[in-house]
C-alpha cells in the first residue's frame, strides 16, 4: 500500500492512499480499502493521515479519525496521538502496520509497529529523507 500526506504553502493539508489489497482476497472482501476515516483522513484543524498494514484492524480502530480526535479533544500532539493509536490501540487487537501523518504546522510523524516500513519525508528547503527499517 502506498500513500502520501502533504501541507502546502496555504496551510492546507491532504492525504492519499492506493493499494492492491491482500494476496488471495475473495468474497468481495474490501478489508484493505483505504476507507475514509480509517486508512485515509485529512482535516486542516488536526492532521492528514495515510495508513498501511492489516486493513481490517485499521478499520476497527478507525485509525485516521482516532488520531485526529486525540488531537482535537485530547490535546495530544501529532506524534503522541499517532503513537497512542499505532503502538498501543492497534497492537492491543493484533493489528500490524503503520501510518504517515502531517499536521497544520508541517510536523510529521510516521509511527509503525511492524518490522519495517518504506517511508520518507521532505520539508521545505531540506533534503529528502528515505527510510526502510525499524532502526533508521
Amino acid at each position, binding site marked *: 500500500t502506498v500513500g502520501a500526506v502533504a501541507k502546502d504553502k496555504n496551510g492546507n493539508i491532504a*492525504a492519499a492512499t492506493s493499494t492492491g489489497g491482500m494476496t488471495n482476497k475473495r468474497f468481495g472482501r474490501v478489508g484493505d480499502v483505504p476507507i475514509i476515516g480509517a486508512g485515509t483522513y485529512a482535516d486542516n484543524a488536526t492532521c*492528514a493521515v495515510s495508513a498501511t498494514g492489516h486493513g481490517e484492524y485499521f478499520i476497527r480502530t478507525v485509525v485516521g479519525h482516532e488520531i485526529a480526535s486525540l488531537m482535537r479533544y485530547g490535546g495530544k500532539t501529532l506524534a503522541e496521538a499517532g503513537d497512542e493509536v499505532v503502538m498501543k490501540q492497534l497492537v492491543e487487537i493484533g493489528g500490524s502496520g503503520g501510518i504517515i501523518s*502531517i499536521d497544520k504546522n508541517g510536523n510529521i510523524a510516521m509511527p509503525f509497529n511492524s518490522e519495517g516500513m518504506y517511508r520518507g519525508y521532505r520539508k521545505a528547503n531540506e533534503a529528502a529523507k528515505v527510510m526502510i527499517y525499524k532502526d533508521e
Partner: protein
Amino acid sequence: QVDFALAIHGGAGTIKKENMTAEQDAEYRAKLEEALDAGYKVLENGGEALDAVVAAVKVMEDSPLFNAGKGAVFTNEGKNEMDAAIMNGSDRNAGAVAGLTRIKNPITAARAVMENSPHVFMSGAGAEQFALTQDLEQVDPSYFYTDFRFQQLEQIRETEKTELDHSSLLEMELKDPFFKDRKFG
C-alpha cells in the same frame, strides 16, 4: 512552522535488512525519493497539497516495487483489483474507489469521485463505469501483472491444497513476508 512538507509510505511489513540485497535496497530508496521529489516540486511551486499527494502516489503506483497500480497483488481469481482514497483537509471532501481493474492510476479515480460526483465511495463495476467516463488513463488489465506477485498467489494457492504442519507454515512465512497475511486474503 514549516512552510510546506510531505511524507510518503510504500508499505509496511516484515521488511528486514538481512532479507534485502543491496540492489533491492537501493532500488526502493531511489523510487521513494522520486515520489518525494514529485510531490515536493508541486508544493515548491505553490501547488496544492491535494496535487502533491496525487503526484507522489502516482510515482509509486507506476512502479512494480509496491503493492498499488502496476505490481498490485492478485485476488484468489487471479485478478488485480485496486483500491484508492483521497481526502482534502480544507473542506473534508473525500473520494474512494474499490475493485478497479482498468484505470492506470487508481488515485486519480478516487479524486474524480471526490471532485466530479456527489458521492464519497464507489466500488466494483459501478466504480469502474464511473471512472471510465472521467477521461482517466485506461490500460488493459494485463498492465498490472508482475511475475513476482503472481508467484506469491501460486504459492498461497498451493499451500491451501495441502494440509500443512507447523514447520512448513513457518518456512513459508520466512520465505515470503506476505504469506503471514494469508488469512486476510
